[in-house]
C-alpha cells in the first residue's frame, strides 16, 4: 500500500505536468491561429483595392462601382489599336519600361564601379563618398526633383530624355552602391591578390574574380533600381521631356487622368494584366528557389 502511494506521487506529478503541457500546447495553437488570422486579414485588406479594380475590369461602366453586365470591353478596347486611351497607355508603358531599363543599367554600372573604387579609398575620402551617397537616400524626392530642374534651367539645357535618365539615376544609384558595398566587405581580398599573383591582368582579375564575387549585390541593386524607377512619379514629372509635352510614363499618365471626370476604363484591364504577370513571376521565382534549396 505504502509503496503504491509512493509510486503514485511522481505519476500524479507527471500527469499534471503532462496536462499543463497539453494546455500550453492548446494555448500555443490558439495563439498561432489568432496570429495567422490577423496576418491574413491584413493581407486581404492590402489586396482589396486591387481586387476591386480587377473585378470591375470585367464590366464596361465608366465609373468603377457601377456594374453594367459582364463583358470584356475593357480588354477589347485595350488591345484595339484605334482606341486613343489604349494608345496612350501602351505608349506610357513603353516609356516607363525603357526609362527604367536604361537608367537602372547605367546606375548599376556607374554605382558598381563607384563602390569598387570607394572600397580601395583611404578612410577619410571614403567617408566623404559615403556621406554624399547617403544624401539622395535620406533626401525628399521633391527636393531632388526641384534641384535638378533648377540645375538644368540654369545650364540652359532642355528637358529631354537625358534629364529624365539623369533624374532616375540620381534616384537609384545610391541603392546600387549600398547593395554592392557589403559584398565587397565580405569578399576575400586574398582571392583577388592571388589572381594578380598568378598573372591575371588587371581587368581580368576585376571581371573574372571580383565581379562574380559581388554579383548578388549588383543584381539586387539593379532590381531595386528597376522597382524605384518603374514606380516613380515626382522626379519623372519634373524632369520628363517638356517639348511636344505628351511624354508620359504610367505614373504621370494615370495622374493626368485623375482630373478627368471618368478615368479611362482600360486602366482596369491594364492593371489586371500587370497583376497577373507579377503573380506568375512570383510563383515562378518561388518554384525555382525551392528547387535550388532542395538541391542543396
Amino acid at each position, binding site marked *: 500500500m505504502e509503496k503504491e502511494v509512493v509510486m503514485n506521487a511522481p505519476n500524479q506529478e507527471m500527469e499534471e505536468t503532462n496536462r499543463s503541457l497539453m494546455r500550453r500546447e492548446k494555448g500555443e495553437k490558439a495563439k498561432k491561429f489568432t*496570429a*495567422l488570422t*490577423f*496576418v491574413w486579414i*491584413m*493581407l486581404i485588406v*492590402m*489586396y482589396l*483595392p*486591387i481586387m*476591386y*479594380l480587377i473585378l470591375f475590369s470585367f464590366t464596361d461602366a465608366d*465609373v468603377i*462601382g457601377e456594374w453594367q453586365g459582364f463583358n470584356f470591353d475593357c480588354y477589347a478596347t485595350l488591345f484595339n489599336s484605334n482606341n486613343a486611351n489604349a494608345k496612350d497607355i501602351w505608349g506610357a508603358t513603353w516609356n516607363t519600361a525603357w526609362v527604367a531599363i536604361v537608367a537602372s543599367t547605367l546606375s548599376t554600372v*556607374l*554605382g558598381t*564601379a*563607384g563602390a*569598387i*573604387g*570607394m*572600397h*580601395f*579609398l583611404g578612410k577619410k575620402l571614403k567617408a566623404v*563618398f559615403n556621406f*554624399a551617397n547617403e*544624401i539622395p537616400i*535620406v*533626401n*525628399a*524626392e*521633391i*527636393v*531632388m526633383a*526641384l*534641384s*535638378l530642374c*533648377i*540645375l538644368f534651367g*540654369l545650364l540652359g539645357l532642355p528637358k529631354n530624355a537625358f534629364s529624365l535618365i*539623369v533624374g532616375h539615376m540620381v534616384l537609384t*544609384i545610391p541603392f546600387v*552602391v549600398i547593395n554592392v558595398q557589403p559584398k565587397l566587405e565580405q569578399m576575400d581580398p586574398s582571392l583577388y*591578390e592571388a589572381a*594578380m*599573383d598568378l598573372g591575371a591582368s588587371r581587368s581580368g582579375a576585376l571581371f573574372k574574380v571580383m565581379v562574380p564575387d559581388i554579383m548578388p549585390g549588383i543584381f539586387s541593386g539593379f532590381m531595386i533600381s528597376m522597382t524605384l524607377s*518603374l514606380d516613380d*512619379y*515626382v522626379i519623372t*514629372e*519634373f524632369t520628363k521631356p517638356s517639348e511636344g509635352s505628351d511624354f508620359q510614363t*504610367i505614373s504621370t499618365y494615370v*495622374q493626368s487622368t*485623375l482630373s478627368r471626370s471618368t478615368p479611362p476604363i482600360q*486602366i482596369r484591364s491594364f*492593371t489586371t494584366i*500587370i497583376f497577373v504577370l*507579377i503573380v506568375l513571376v*512570383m510563383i515562378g521565382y*518561388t518554384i525555382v528557389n525551392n528547387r535550388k534549396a532542395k538541391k542543396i
Partner: protein
Amino acid sequence: MEATKTLSRNKGVVRETRKWLCMPYGVFLILFIILPILLIFYYAFTDARTGAFTLGNFAALFEGDSSVTTFKVIGQSLGVAALTTVICILIAYPIAYILANSKWNKNIVLVYLFLLPMWINFVIRTIATKQLLIFFGLDPALHPWVCSIIGMVYNYLPFAILPLYNTMLKLDKSQIEAAADLGASPVQVFFKTIVPMTVPGIVSAATMTFMPTMSSYVITDALSGRTITLIGGQIENMFLNGAQQDLASVYAVIMLALIGLSVVFENLFSEKKGAR
C-alpha cells in the same frame, strides 16, 4: 627578391588604379546631387533680380497673409507624416513579429505577399483605393483626412514591415525566454525585452515613412479632394505651374532642415543602442 619587389609594386599600382573607378561616380555625385542642392540654397537666400543676399524670400512666405498658407501647408504635412508613421508602425509591428516568428510562420511566401502590391503602380493603387473608399461610403471630399491617411498607410505599410521584419529575424530568443522564465509577465516581456531590441527597426521604419510621405502629394491630391496640400505639392504648384523658383527653393530648404532633424534624431537612437 627583385621579382617579389616588382610584384608588390605592381600590386600597389593596381590599388591606385582601382581607386580611380569611383571617379565617374564622384563626378556624377558632385554635378547632379551636391551642386543642385547648393543651387537651392542659393536661390532661397538671394534676390531674384539682383542676386544679392536676402531673407526676403522667407519673409514673403512667413509675413502677412501668405504666412497663413505657409503654416497650413507645413502643419498639414507634419500632421499627415506623423499620423501615417505612427499608424504604419502600429500595424506593421505585429505583422512583422508574427511573420518573423518561426513558431507561427515558416513560409517566406507570406512575406513576399505583403511586398507584392508595391509592384503595381502606386498611382493606380491610389485610384483603386479612392473608388473602394467611395464604395464603403467614405467620400474623399467629405472626409479628406481619414481618406488621405488610409491611402498613405496603405502605400507605406510594406516599407514599414520590411525593416521591422529584418530586425525581428535577429531577435535574441534566449533573452526573451530568460525574461519569461524569471517571472516577467507577457506584457513585461514585450515592453522590457522585445521592444528595446527592435528599436533600430522601429527607427528605420519611421524614417522609411515619415519624410517620403511629404513628397507623396499625388496620394493626398487624389484622396482629399485637393483640400490637403503637402510641402511637395506646394513646391510643384509654385515651380511647375507658377515659375516661382525662389519661393519653391525656400520650401525645399525648410524640407532639408526637417530631413536634417530626422537624421540627427535617427543617429541619436543608433548611438544609444551602441552605448548599450
